[in-house]
């Protein structure tokens, strides 16, 4: 597929050894994994493409590459490892890393691949994505040949502005509306259902206000059905694919960008869990089985780099691994369930050990069923937050500083969950595809207390307008007031708007 250096013999043996240990002794269950050796330039290149060297052409990969190259030139960062969720999985080793680094990476990779294969949120991802990406690349290159790079790239830019407007849970839920609505029902539905009554009794059995009530209900239902879409839709990209006046090539590019967004979504949804899982296993496999005594110090060194968090930083590797270890210990000692929750005595609590030994089994279950949000929600305890010295921080406008706000558990958890839900991005829905009865598009920002960043919102409206071809609007709240941001292809407007939560 590509020119990459073959893995030297001694490393191949090591890969084999770690693979055996991970599989046979610790029960990790991974796809076949193909390791390739690359130099740092190739590593930067592959990283720029998000792991896929076969992707479609686009300037932002060049930008990413420039930034990665700069920061590796200046020694600010170095990518140790990269692995692609695919069957078989591909993983890249950096040429010139020392042996302990390589061992760490190999073990880390196998754990990632186990996670890809088993975690529920990855279950719907395309496991032939390497091929699919190449296919996307070929299609887009064909459009470039026909229409020129500027035009195609410009449209890709447009689509990328919209690529977070997908419904992260939709791969798991069948929620597509019926293609054809039952139009037959409409005429009949317009008749008001009446109780049977003789004429002279009618106004008693079916009193006027009852009739009015029924009329109103019917009208509301009719209104709802007339609405387009009938209910707010979160997969804005899909709505556009189905209803925007797109040319064939445009629709194809939009669908490609959407597909890739869905492919990458689970990696964002499970960052803490996935990195934690990989870190948990590389530590275990290396220290218990693979390393020689002389290598332990080197390992401690690299591991501490991975686990480093600067002041105020939350390192997903560190948080994740700490949480798995906490779970393992709690389930080993039986520190869970009703009995445990009801203990008030601190001393009893700290000496608690029912020797259940359920820890290992539990963490495997957790890696299968949870994502970052549910992981944190269910397993992060007050003790854990305290032991790990967690806090919330915020921006102090008066001083221009970021400051520690609180160490209160409830606030920490709340903030962390908010940050992780929907990747800390605003919830946006399509509310009306025929706004003002003029074919305008109306989006709804489900307001959760945090306003949108306005210049970016305007940028997205421009992209939307490019796709929808008619004026586009989004309703949101700014300065505690409902506001409608509009873009008609020439001008941006902001007007007061009656904001009703959906």
């Amino acid at each position: 597929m590509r020119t990459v250096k073959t893995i030297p013999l001694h490393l191949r043996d090591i890969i084999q050894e770690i693979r055996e240990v991970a599989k046979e002794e610790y029960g990790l269950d991974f796809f076949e994994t193909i390791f390739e050796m690359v130099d740092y330039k190739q590593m930067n290149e592959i990283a720029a493409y998000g792991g896929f060297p076969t992707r479609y052409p686009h300037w932002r990969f060049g930008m990413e590459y420039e930034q990665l190259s700069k920061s590796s030139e200046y020694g600010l960062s170095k990518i140790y490892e990269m692995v692609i969720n695919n069957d078989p999985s591909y993983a890249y080793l950096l040429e010139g890393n020392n042996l302990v680094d390589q061992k760490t990476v190999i073990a880390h990779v196998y754990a990632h691949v186990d996670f890809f294969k088993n975690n529920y949120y990855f279950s719907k991802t395309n496991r032939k994505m390497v091929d699919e990406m190449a296919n996307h690349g070929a299609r887009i290159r064909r459009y470039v040949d026909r229409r020129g790079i500027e035009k195609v790239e410009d449209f890709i830019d447009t689509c990328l502005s919209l690529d977070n407007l997908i419904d992260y849970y939709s791969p798991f839920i069948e929620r597509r509306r019926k293609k054809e609505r039952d139009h037959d029902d409409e005429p009949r539905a317009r008749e008001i259902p009446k109780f049977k009554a003789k004429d002279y009794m009618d106004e008693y059995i079916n009193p006027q206000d009852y009739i009015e009530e029924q009329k109103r209900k019917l009208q509301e239902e009719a209104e709802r059905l007339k609405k387009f879409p009938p209910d707010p839709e979160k997969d804005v990209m899909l709505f556009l694919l189905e209803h925007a006046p797109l040319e064939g090539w445009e629709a194809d590019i939009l669908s490609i960008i959407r597909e890739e967004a869905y492919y990458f979504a689970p990696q964002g949804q499970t960052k803490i869990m996935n990195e934690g899982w990989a870190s948990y296993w590389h530590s275990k496999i290396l220290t218990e089985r693979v390393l020689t005594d002389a290598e332990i110090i080197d390992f401690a060194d690299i591991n501490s780099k991975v686990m480093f968090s600067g002041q105020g930083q939350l390192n997903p590797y560190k948080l994740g691994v700490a949480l798995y270890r906490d779970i393992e210990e709690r389930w080993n000692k039986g520190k869970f369930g009703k009995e445990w929750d009801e203990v008030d005595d601190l001393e009893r609590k700290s000496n608690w050990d029912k020797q259940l030994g359920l820890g290992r089994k539990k963490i495997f279950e957790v890696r299968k069923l949870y994502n970052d949000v549910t992981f944190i929600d269910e397993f992060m305890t007050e003790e854990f937050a305290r032991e790990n010295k967690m806090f919330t921080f915020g921006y102090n406008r008066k001083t221009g500083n970021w400051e520690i706000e609180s160490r209160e558990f409830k606030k920490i958890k709340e903030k962390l969950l908010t940050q992780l839900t929907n990747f800390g991005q605003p919830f946006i829905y399509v509310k009306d595809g025929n706004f003002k009865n003029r074919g305008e598009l109306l989006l709804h920002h489900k307001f959760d207390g945090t306003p949108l960043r306005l210049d970016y919102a305007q940028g997205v409206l421009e992209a939307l307008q490019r796709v929808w071809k008619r004026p586009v609007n989004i309703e949101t709240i700014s300065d505690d007031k409902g506001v409608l941001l509009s873009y008609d292809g020439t001008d941006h407007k902001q007007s007061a708007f009656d904001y009703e939560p959906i």
Partner: protein
Amino acid sequence: MTELNKIKQDHRRFKQIVRGKIKRNLRKYMSQGELTGKQGKDVVKVPIPRIDIPRFRYGDKNTGGVGQGEGEPGDVIGQGDQAPGQGGEAGSEEGEHGIEVDVPLDELAEIMGEELELPNIEPRGKKRIETIREKYSGLRRTGPESLRHFKETYKEALKRQMALGDYDPDNPVILPTKEDVRYRSWKVTELPESNAVILYMMDVSGSMGDEQKEIVRIESFWIDTWLRSQYKGIESRYIIHDATAKEVDRHTFFHTRESGGTMISSAYKLCMKILEKDYPAEEWNVYPFHFSDGDNWSVDDTAECMKILNEGVLPRANMFCYGQVESPYGSGQFIKDLDEHFEGTERVTLSEIKNRDAIYDSIKEFLGKGL
């Protein structure tokens, strides 16, 4: 060959887009002075607006986050624009912010030249300093195989065969013999090269405020950038003056503030002294720039200035540039005097700079003559 070189295309494309952005926003860069503080040795960091992809998102400062570590509520954990802990992981997320790109100064000058339609400078006819450049442009009969010149070898063979009558056009076989083989070889060419000196002079008396100096600072950045692209060797010297003049370093030049009177002639005298001592006219291209708000101490001193310019500076300089920065306190007289005295003199360029927005046009006035 390998697919691994694909990034080159995307990288080139990215640079092309950056270049276009810089061009379109040049006027803004010039008026805001964004670039002047970001200059490295040969590159300048250019903040590129909106090259990132806009998406619906929250304003950073509205959200905050969760961290780990020591500290009490109220303790500072970070400053400024970037929220703590936003390191950014490779490959998993797109860069969300506008970015800074390293642009080589040469390229910036090129963009500037295109956009401002600046003519290239023809250095004055004093090409003393010569550099030696080696170029593979010659041919030899011996040499290493790696330098064998395929085409020339066959040409030689063809010549020989034709001379000997061995060449058959119906069966065009050419067989080079050992004598036919030619190798590339290098030739030494001597390139005349010119050096230039820029002398910046500025009035630092009280009426030149921070804003005025900032304008001068921005202008000098662009002047430097352009002239640097035109000459191989460039030196800059800085003179500040009120009633007396002294030579200072670049930092002092832009950060000194004096009070008291203004005698412009003091600066011109010092300028002459420096030129006479260090920059013999036959070897150097000379660019004196003077910035003030247009107040001078006396009519006599102004007359003195004209005399020095006429007799000393102009005969040596490619061009003398005077930039008058508008200040609420200055009378703005000096530019009128210069104009009266030097009207029609090609090598004197005068420019009034009302505010930052005028920098763009002022640069064009200064550098547009190609002198």
